[in-house]
């Protein structure tokens, strides 16, 4: 019974996430006050369906795939959540429609370009999201060369189709959420230029992000399990925490009205951060590549 139910749970949870994305102005979809929080809650249900499928298949490849999926999805949910938290801090709302309103009026208002921490967060979100939906280069749960087809090895017919529909639905929805959070949602890139309706802009940006996902799939080789986990816990998590801290500080400074006035131009904390943070990152890079921490001998790849 668990075997039969699992694909529907995975697909249902993927589609339910679509309810938090506002596709156009004055849309009632995605216009409620717990939207982003609900997204994080529902997206964590997918992993239950995958474990269910892998365990109920009664096959070692399926079980391996399910365990890899559980480890991967649970791990990458944390940087994903931190990236969303940065957006919530910067806009002061959990309502996706309000997040889009906050970045309306031209490409320079989009959250990805507001301040450097959000710029980093956008990439953090996108990469974590690729890992979350199990696409190459992070498709370990269904690695063909190692474990046949992972958690859906034993499935065929319409149930297999549901797993694949869930995967592609997930890709589109994750891209749509990235568009909403960082790329201005349905608002156009040039202020005062209403050539295309909002829903077309939204679709264009979403399709662009889906295209990048497919592009990555055919470009990059699959990573190893230990590389995957190291990327999440050693790099993404600290970067995500620094992003949250930095955004909090910038918001506090903006609230206190801190800023510089140079030649009649007023520069707020975000403008100052655009100068300071890249310099700090560059210094950190120079330190890391010249006699910083010595490289350790490569560890032998672990198998789960």
């Amino acid at each position: 019974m668990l075997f039969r139910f699992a694909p529907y749970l995975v697909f249902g949870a993927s589609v339910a996430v679509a309810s938090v994305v506002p596709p156009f102005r004055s849309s009632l979809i995605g216009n409620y006050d717990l939207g982003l929080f609900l997204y994080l809650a529902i997206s964590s249900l997918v992993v239950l369906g995958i474990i269910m499928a892998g365990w109920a298949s009664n096959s070692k490849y399926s079980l391996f795939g399910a365990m890899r999926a559980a480890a991967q999805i649970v791990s990458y949910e944390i940087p994903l959540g931190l990236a969303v938290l940065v957006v919530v801090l910067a806009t002061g709302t959990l309502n996706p429609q309000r997040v889009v309103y906050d970045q309306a009026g031209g490409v320079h208002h989009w959250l990805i370009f507001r301040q450097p921490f959000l710029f980093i967060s956008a990439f953090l979100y996108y990469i974590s999201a690729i890992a979350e939906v199990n696409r190459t280069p992070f498709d370990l749960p269904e690695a063909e060369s190692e474990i046949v087809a992972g958690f859906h090895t034993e499935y065929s017919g319409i149930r297999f189709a549901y797993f694949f529909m869930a995967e592609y639905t997930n890709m589109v929805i994750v891209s749509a959420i990235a568009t909403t959070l960082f790329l201005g949602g349905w608002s156009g890139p040039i202020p005062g230029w209403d050539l295309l309706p909002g829903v077309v802009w939204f679709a264009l940006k979403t399709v662009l992000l889906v295209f990048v996902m497919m592009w990555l799939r055919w470009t990059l080789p699959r990573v190893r399990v230990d590389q995957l986990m190291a990327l999440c816990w050693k790099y993404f998590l600290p970067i995500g925490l620094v992003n949250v801290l930095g955004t909090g500080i910038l918001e506090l400074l903006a609230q206190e009205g801190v800023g510089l006035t140079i030649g009649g131009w007023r520069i707020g904390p975000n403008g100052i951060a655009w100068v300071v943070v890249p310099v700090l990152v560059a210094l950190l890079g120079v330190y890391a590549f010249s006699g910083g921490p010595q490289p350790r001998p490569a560890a032998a790849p672990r198998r789960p």
Partner: protein
Amino acid sequence: MEAVVFYLLAGVAVVFAGVVVTTRNVVHAAFALMVSLGAVAGFYVLLDADFLAVIQLLVYVGGILVLVLFGVMMTSGRLIMQLRAPVGQLLPATFVGLILLGFLLHVGRSELPNNRTLVFEDSDGETARRVARLLRELGAESARLQSETARVVLTFQGAGPLRPEAVRDARRAVERGLQAARPSSSRLYVIQVQEVWGAPERLQIALERKGTPASDGMAPLDPSRIAEILQPLSPREDLRLIAVQGLRAVRVQGLSEAVYRRLREDPALRVLTPLSTTAGLGDALMLGEFLLPFEVAGLILLVALMGAAIIARKGITP
């Protein structure tokens, strides 16, 4: 309708909770727990506690359950376990179970304190009289009625249909205006933008005080004072502030549960739901009365972690 959904959810929750404790298979138990916990999230939605429902999904279904399953499947070879409790454990377990049952029965039977609050829209003063009459009929002596300005609505008018960036600029201008008037005052208000249906060239911004006026002893909202602050400011050349309205409301405090439900379901009364932002959420969670439950939830997560470790260890220790 609500009753049907409630009994449906209650049946699902109870049946699957039964499966959790009777099945011998740990993984079956975990998936039955998933359904049971999901049904409990449904209860929260029925009780108008949306936030709690999402928390339930996030923490219990998405967090604890995955942790338990993950722990069991990663480390234990045998999934069918004879979870037989020795007699030594049976006695304290029965004792604790009885205490819990007694506590639940006590809570279920006892009278809740009369501390519910409702706010109704009251544009013409008619609502205040109606609520007062209803309270007399229901014999609610402890209730206190208070008429106040609960919300100030600023209406902006643009030349044509408003662009989205005008919406943002108007909100920022209001924030800045309030802040300039008194350095800390922007944090006293909850600000929310509302579109006007059927009038795309108009825009409304609603202001509400944080907290209840009675609780912090500060002056209530004053529409004329806010109009005075915001009148000189013009967020954009194509956007004018055309009206500042105070929304009159009746605040009824000290209601018992039964009276609260009766008033809330009265078709002639319009309940004013407060505006909400993430800042309010943080205040309530971190500084308000929910700090203790919040910490208890953290403790439960810790216990689940230890439980998962113990279940997982059983399979591998010789």
